[in-house]
């Protein structure tokens, strides 16, 4: 019971912060749109080519935007001394960190999921493909947040933390990118989608179990 209250408090506080300082999440959101747009401009106006490459572009942009969003995930709380208070809570740290990651996903990942169908329209996707794009991102972006949190925790307080976190985490993002874009591409050419989506679900469950453990372990080491 008290654990749910703490989880609720952590998520609520991150929402309050996001509302009071919307610039942080707007940056991530705009970066996602701009980056996809830049690719489209760079490729040129050929609609067939844009349609073929759109999935990869949107997914890769989501990956990069998620890395960009990691900067303040733990470092702000560490600077203020809130993180050590979180470590001292007499409840499992993994659950508290999971709450923090969920909060982070709601403010950075969810907007990307919601705007992705509109980007898909710009790349000339069919309605079915738009749906699959959004649902694959809905399954994929939480994995990005979970893995990203591991990178942020490992590099907490290190010089050039965000760049280093990108080096550590981007390679691990590859399976998400592969299955996410396979699903959407399958929808574009009209073949079966569900197997790719179920693999994403499997990855999500895997990350949900393991990532908070690694995050907690790294944070304990970092604050030791």
């Amino acid at each position, binding site marked *: 019971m008290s654990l749910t209250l703490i989880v609720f408090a952590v998520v609520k506080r991150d929402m309050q912060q996001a509302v009071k300082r919307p610039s942080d999440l707007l940056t991530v959101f705009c970066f996602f749109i701009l980056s996809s747009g830049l690719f489209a401009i760079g490729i040129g106006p050929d609609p067939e080519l844009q349609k073929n490459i759109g999935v990869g572009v949107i997914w890769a942009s989501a990956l990069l935007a998620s890395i960009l969003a990691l900067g303040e995930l733990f470092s702000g709380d560490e600077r203020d001394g809130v993180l050590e208070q979180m470590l*001292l809570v007499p409840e499992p740290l993994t659950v508290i960190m999971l709450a923090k990651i969920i909060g982070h996903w709601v403010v950075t990942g969810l907007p990307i999921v919601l705007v992705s169908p509109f980007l898909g329209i710009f790349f000339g996707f069919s309605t079915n493909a738009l749906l699959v794009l959004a649902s694959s991102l809905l399954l994929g972006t939480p994995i990005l947040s979970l893995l990203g949190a591991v990178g942020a925790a490992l590099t907490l307080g290190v010089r050039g933390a965000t760049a280093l976190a990108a080096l550590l985490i981007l390679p691990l993002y590859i399976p998400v990118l592969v299955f996410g874009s396979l699903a959407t591409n399958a929808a574009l050419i009209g073949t079966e989608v569900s197997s790719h989506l179920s693999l994403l679900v499997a990855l999500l469950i895997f990350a949900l179990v393991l990532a908070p453990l690694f995050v907690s372990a790294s944070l304990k080491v970092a604050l030791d």
Partner: protein
Amino acid sequence: MLKLVDVACIRGQGLLFRNLSRSINCGSLLRVHGANGVGKTSLLRIIVGLSSPHTGQVIWKQQPISQDMDYFRTQLLFIGHSDALKPDLTPHENISFLLALGKIRVDEDQLSQDISRWGLGRLKGKPVYSLSKGQRRRLSLMRLLYGHNKPLWVLDEPFIGLDPKAISVLVALIESHLARKGIVIYTTHQNVDIKSPINKIIRLDQI
């Protein structure tokens, strides 16, 4: 109640202290004393279980704290060097969050009243970044008002930045905690007179 057994601490390449053994009974006030860099904060972090000692143990009620960390943490109120306040949130939001983390339930109205009584009522609704250093410290220390269920208070430099009036209020809080058989461990560079039945000191530069 609390015992340090043969505790040693290494930071970076250097040994800060070793063979530190003390036992601290209920109702004691313990001041950790020493110049900058002798390891006062490191010792406090070892006591609260944030760091593990290089050798030795911290024992709470006959049991090493590492054995049942969750139980030990229910007994503990730690106010660290930083204030643990988020600059964008209001005093009310900050304290309410910190109390939730400490599993202390306080009525919202009660909390508003307490903030006013604590002399921060004028700052209601303002973000914490607009507060002065001393006001922030005071706000952070407000958690002590609700700390009567936590026998062990560990305070890192609690008096820093406080005005004389706030210091006397804090001293009164500490004294009443000692009177109900709590333990207070603190560091300070200021000379603050706290009346306590058992007064102890660890001089880290002499170990």
